[in-house]
């Protein structure tokens, strides 16, 4: 399935600028207490210039997928047990460490949620950005510094020259996130993975950072994977959305379709359970129960114990992610009914 199907998918994908494809990825964590099946067949792709939002709650596997793409999964306990991650059609999981290292930064780069722990506290921010130019591009110290200052300037850090020799703790949260964006974009990656980039920030700063990311993405025609749990942020910036639950994609759709008419009861439940600022509702309609234990995922559809629409078939058969036309897909036995309801 892997080697044969790859060129075909690739051939059809390349003209539209398909950059990254995750195909039926499976990851498990082997711990003392048992095996947690964290990713159970995730498939998604990103094209040049588009923003794919991966939406899910804690434990849905959205960050682990990203870590597997970047090759920074902690092994052990995490093990890839199946599937492919193709960058320009080539399976990265089969590459040598050296080949993968070359893709990191230049091909795919990542920014993290917690900028204070993602930056090295004992080196200056400038040094950490310039380091990439010296090692990967072979520039001299002076040239690398010049380029690093340009990068800091591009992410709109005031007084970039003076800030070059500051340490991470001397930056505010928003500034630090900007510095991390500068660092990840230094080698001009084709795909940027942003893992909860604004979760730790205040709303006014969040708006600044999301603006900046959007602007840089348009300039560079990057593909972006935005990992988040915030339905508000997603509505503002995403082109397409993949909703994850218990290590699977349960729904994938265009942003307008997903908010207009969700095709999976979990998505519908999420949308109903957020308090909205434009309406003062009485009681929030919640999703009952708790997310499943990944060591013991319910049989059939993983969402069935919490689902208001669950039928006997949901406990027996795992619903596959089926196309519903117009680029949307849902992994629910009753997706058609959901979409066609009024």
């Amino acid at each position: 399935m892997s080697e044969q199907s790859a060129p075909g998918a690739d051939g059809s994908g390349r003209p539209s600028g398909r950059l990254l494809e995750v195909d039926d990825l499976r990851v498990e964590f082997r711990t003392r207490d048992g095996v947690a099946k964290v990713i159970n067949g995730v498939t998604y792709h990103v094209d040049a210039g588009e923003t794919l939002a991966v939406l899910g709650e804690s434990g849905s596997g959205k960050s682990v997928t990203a870590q597997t793409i970047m090759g920074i999964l902690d092994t052990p306990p995490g093990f890839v047990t199946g599937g492919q991650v193709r960058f320009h059609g080539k399976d990265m999981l089969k590459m040598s460490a050296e080949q993968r290292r070359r893709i990191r930064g230049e091909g795919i780069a990542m920014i993290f949620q917690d900028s204070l722990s993602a930056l090295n506290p004992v080196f200056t921010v400038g040094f950490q950005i310039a380091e990439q130019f010296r090692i990967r591009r072979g520039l001299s110290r002076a040239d690398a510094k010049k380029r690093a200052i340009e990068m800091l300037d591009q992410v709109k850090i005031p007084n970039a020259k003076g800030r070059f020799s500051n340490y991470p703790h001397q930056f505010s949260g928003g500034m630090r996130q900007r510095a991390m964006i500068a660092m990840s974009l230094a080698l001009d990656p084709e795909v940027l993975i942003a893992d909860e980039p604004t979760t730790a920030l205040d709303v006014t700063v969040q708006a600044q950072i999301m603006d900046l990311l959007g602007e840089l993405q348009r300039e560079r025609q990057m593909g972006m994977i935005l990992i988040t749990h915030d339905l508000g942020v997603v509505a503002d910036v995403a082109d397409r959305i993949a909703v994850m639950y218990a290590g699977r994609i349960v729904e994938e759709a265009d942003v307008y379709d997903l908010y207009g008419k969700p095709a999976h009861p979990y998505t519908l439940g999420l949308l109903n359970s957020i308090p909205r600022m434009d309406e003062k509702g009485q009681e929030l309609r919640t999703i009952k129960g708790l997310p499943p234990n990944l060591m013991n995922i319910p049989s059939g559809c993983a969402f069935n114990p919490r689902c208001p629409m669950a039928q006997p078939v949901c406990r027996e058969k795992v619903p596959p992610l089926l196309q519903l036309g117009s680029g949307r897909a849902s992994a629910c036995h009753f997706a058609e009914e959901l979409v066609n309801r009024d």
Partner: protein
Amino acid sequence: MTENIIEVRDLVKHYPVTRGIVFKKTIGHVKAVDGVSFDLKAGETLGVVGESGCGKSTLARVLMNLEKPTAGQVLYKGQDISKLSGGALRRLRRQIQLVMQDPYTSLNPRMTVGDLIGEPFEIHPEVAPKGSRRGKVKELLDLVGLNPEHINRYPHQFSGGQRQRIGIARALALRPEVIVCDEPVSALDVSIQAQVMNLLEQLQSEFGLSYVFIAHDLSVVRHLSDRVAVMYLGKMVEVGTEDEIYERPTHPYTQALLSAVPVPDPTLRESKAIIRLQGDVPSPISPPSGCRFRTRCWKAQDLCAQEVPLLQIRPGSDHPSACHFAEKREIVATHPAA
């Protein structure tokens, strides 16, 4: 007219900044809360919003009498709480309880749920005599939607949302009149957050509780609050009913804050105008002169640097705002889509 259960008058809380280890020298003060006044009526929810560092959590600590105010007063039914001691203080503590943000660190991992929720009864034995305590704890567990049979479990056996319910049960144990909630749902996932918010509302109507609800999430605050106070750098910049603040904000900071909240509706992308603030919040050690918001405000004039704007009702508006140039402005994000 409903009575005020808590009255806060010109509350100030400064923390000294010191230098040196043996010979400590105070080199400045963090002005965490700097002149805040408000009332809390019986049975109402007062939302307090603001960004990190605006002093909202310090306010909670002073309300709880965990910190003594530098100046000003917190009056509980007319009594200054910082002047109480001994039995009077203990009686007061029964009436004001706290729910904390992080359900992971606010519960002692070595105590069972039964001990955690039952601990308040040790300190206030008059509420529940010894024999009846386990029964009371089970009642409380049931009340917050947990299984009473889990009374012997430890906190790590519960999920984040369930732990927050334990925290709420513990706050309810002594049947308080006021609960101060400091970011009670911000550590929780969306689907769990909604469950906890519904629980808080249900408990309020059942027991007639008053809440001081501190949060940075403006949608959550709107959903739960009757009145809302917006804080910036230790001061309140605008106070009003939920409707006044969200539909007719007059302070530029409130307007910017509201406009920056992402709305879960992609069709609003075009019509939404985000007011973009420049830069970061200034240091509370040396806040700007005059209006503290002026360094990031697009309306700032010379007057703003010279004169501190008072929190008062201004012409053309129906609620207090601390801006010399207060003016109504509609924020798309807070209006229902047509």
